[in-house]
């Protein structure tokens, strides 16, 4: 199948190095300590953060750091064909773990000992790159909850189809079975906290694809920062002195 037309356009009309449109909204869940909706093109994810709060299960309480928990679910209506049991399958458990580890790496857990932070992410519309979208949404929600973090962790994916590196794969490109590199990146510290790849890639191409994904992460980070700054200013001026 042809994923990049001779004119250099992808199936959804993007250039190979072009991202989908980003949109973020903070404060979607009123009862949560922090929440956000994040969209990458047709992928739409909602995240809610509760805590830091008292640990539910005393046995899990840690005396030197906070307990971070994460739950990833896909809404039944998120994909083309309706899923019956969206929770508890292997894929969800794996992604929950991936998100938890990525977020744990940037949360300053030692500042909140003996407490727990719950992150709930739900995919409302799935169109490829849900993993990245979830991480970005969770970052926003954590920042909204006022939880101290080393850096804004952002994520983006990149692939390699028709001998062209492609940024931010959508569902059709994702299911082509080609290599798909998902990167979680700390822009300020210039560190990679998540790196996953399906399928195989030659080493020299891998370098360029990963670099492309990192560039994508930086673009996402710039956008998130804008959104957060706007939100902070708004909260401050509304409150008044």
């Amino acid at each position, binding site marked *: 199948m042809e994923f990049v037309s001779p004119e250099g356009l992808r199936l959804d009309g993007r250039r190979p190095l072009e991202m989908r449109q980003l949109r*973020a*909204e*903070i*404060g979607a869940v*009123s009862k949560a*300590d*922090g929440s956000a909706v994040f969209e990458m093109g047709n992928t739409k994810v909602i995240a809610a953060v509760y*805590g*830091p*709060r*008292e640990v539910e299960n005393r046995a899990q309480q840690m*005396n030197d750091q906070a307990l971070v928990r994460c739950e990833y679910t896909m809404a039944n209506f998120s994909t083309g064909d309706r899923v019956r049991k969206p929770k508890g399958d292997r894929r969800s458990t794996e992604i929950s773990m991936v998100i938890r580890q990525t977020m744990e790496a940037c949360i*300053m857990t030692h500042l*909140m*000992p*003996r*407490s727990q932070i719950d992150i709930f992410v739900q995919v409302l519309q799935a169109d490829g790159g849900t993993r990245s979208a979830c991480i970005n949404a969770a970052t926003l929600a954590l*920042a*909204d*909850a*006022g*939880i*101290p*973090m*080393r*850096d*804004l962790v952002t994520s983006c994916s990149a692939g390699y189809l028709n001998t062209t590196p492609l940024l931010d794969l959508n569902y059709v490109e994702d299911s082509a079975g080609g290599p798909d590199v998902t990167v979680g990146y700390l*822009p*300020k*510290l210039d560190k990679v906290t998540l790196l996953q790849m399906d399928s195989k890639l030659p080493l020299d191409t891998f370098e360029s694809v990963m670099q492309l994904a990192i560039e994508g992460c930086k673009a996402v980070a710039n956008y998130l*920062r804008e*959104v*957060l*700054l*706007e*939100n*902070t*200013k*708004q*909260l*401050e*001026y*509304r*409150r*008044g*002195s």
Partner: protein
Amino acid sequence: MREIELSLNQTQKIRLQRALDRLQSLSSKSTSNSSVTVADTIPVNDEDGILKGHGTLEVDSEVVATVCGVVERVNKLIYVRSLRSRYKPETGDIVVGRVVEVAQKRWRIEINSNQDAVLMLSSVTLPDGIQRRRTPIDELNMRNIFVENDVISAEVRNGQHDGIWQLHARSNKYGKLDRGQLIAVPTYLVKRRKQHFHQLDKYGVLLILGCNGYVWVGELTEAKDSMEVDDVNESEKSNAKSSDQTKLEENYTALETRENICRIANAVRVLSILGFSITVEVILEMCELSILLNLDIHDMLGAEFCVTVAEKEAVRRSL
């Protein structure tokens, strides 16, 4: 980016936007551009030694914010005051909390903080009001004072080395709260002040603005030494009423008071929706305004009243 969740029509939208723009221009006059987000560099003078406070981190000899908020500078100390975050207790704060557990010699109280706080049996006044050593019998009778899910008011006493905060309720004004509403608002909207207990005699309402973002609006009852009052009453009425009836009367709140409670509670809710800081003055002003406009209590949560309040606030702050 945080949208106000109201269904506004076109005119109201424009009016609200204008009011908010006005607030924005007012606040930008007084404070310079000092909002930061996570991982923003905070500019500092390297020559004079600086102290890094909360919400900051040193990365490659740069001071970097770890939370979203406003940079505050006090002499050499630089810290970031975060807006939306959980309550951080400080000694002397007045808080409203909910009892989650009755344990040995203590209650565990949920106060919207990182961890539950502890209220020791020895730091409450007993119902009989006598100062004495707490006996095992008192321990058995702890449920007569507070049980699970009771809402109480207390003062933060001190923090322990393990991060658990102790409360005390060693005064008549603290203790169990009943016949009223508890409203949870974001913590940053309640400022620490001299007074957090407000007896609104005009409305017959007791308003407690807990530092932890829990606001209590309840019936204003007479001083808590109800026992003496009861004695007098009973002798006066010369046992005309059966004890059942007096009990009923005790549990009865007049309709007017209940309405006032709802009105004040809705004023607090509107302020929390709009994200304006919550003070008694503003709440009372809003109540009077709503009465003046002849608004029903449930209409206070409607779009029109919110917009009016936003406009009023813009006028108030520009004075």
